[in-house]
């Protein structure tokens, strides 16, 4: 796959992430319960748990910033942009893994939006690695 195609895929994935995290940020700031697709009702528990903020900043807003960074990386050409993307994706993937652990073993509830976001972050990391291998050749 060409670098151009990888950037396009990364941009699409990041846009999906922006939409999810923007929605979760909005529900958190408005104090409303997110619509939990597929039922289960775990979204409200996760979104309002004590882990939903870091120093007063909603975790969803941090996710929004990360996806915006990935989108920026996809919009730019070259190795520096590829490195930026890899850095953001790696931080996001590691923190996302920790959040998934919290959902499963500490909070005891699963939020489908968060699972979707974790999958998107993993996809972004994969695309960023492939892109760097292409641009680094």
């Amino acid at each position: 796959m060409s670098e151009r195609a990888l950037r396009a895929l990364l941009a699409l994935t990041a846009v999906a992430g922006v939409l999810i995290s923007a929605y979760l940020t909005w529900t958190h700031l408005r104090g409303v319960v997110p619509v939990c697709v597929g039922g289960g009702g775990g979204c409200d528990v996760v979104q309002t748990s004590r882990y939903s903020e870091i120093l007063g900043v909603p975790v969803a807003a941090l996710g929004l910033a990360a996806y915006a960074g990935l989108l920026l990386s996809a919009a730019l050409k070259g190795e520096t942009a590829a490195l930026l993307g890899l850095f953001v994706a790696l931080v996001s993937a590691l923190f996302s893994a920790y959040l998934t652990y919290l959902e499963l073993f500490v909070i005891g509830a699963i939020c489908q939006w968060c699972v979707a976001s974790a999958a998107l972050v993993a996809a972004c990391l994969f695309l960023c690695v492939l892109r760097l291998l292409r641009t680094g050749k």
Partner: protein
Amino acid sequence: MQKGNVRLVIVLAAVAVAVAGLMVVLSQLEGGGSQETFADIPQDYTTLGREDAPVEIQLYEDFQCPACAQFARETLPELVEARVEPGEARLVSETMAFLGPDSVSTARAALAAGEQDRYWQYAYLLFENQGAENSGYATDEFLTNLAEETEGLDVEEWRAARDDASVDKELEAVQKRADAAGVQATPTIVVSGPGGEEMLRGAVPIEEVERAIEEVQRS
């Protein structure tokens, strides 16, 4: 990939791990408020604040409700500091127990703490340690641990008060007040004063509560 670039990627990965680790550490820090938030403020059962405060804020809540926990963590500490502590408003917790069995046991435990005027400290701990809805997390051991953590609470007295019939009467009375006030969900915040009454729904930010207080202060 060139050798220099490989080194750069390794450094970048190490920094990424450090940043993610820092975020994990920061996420472990406790949310807003502590038991200290309620110290030195008069308490009477589920009421916090001076009896002659011109504004009353009724807080309809269920200890299993995640949005109630969010309100308790993000809005309540600031509200207590800005309005309750100076004597401008008093808070009345209207403890509801409609979400399931864990709601009933947590409500009984908090009301029992209220018998010793430690309701707000105990409620703070309940929200900080809230489990998944109706997962059976509110076991006797869990509730007793929180009682032991509650500053100034006599645990033996609390244990006896938990089984008192007056707790059931209070829960019924709150349900009737909630029905009369048209409360459909928790948290619902009813702010009343000389200028009337305002009803807020959800884990509203402090700005919305402040606006409601100013509205009802106008006579």
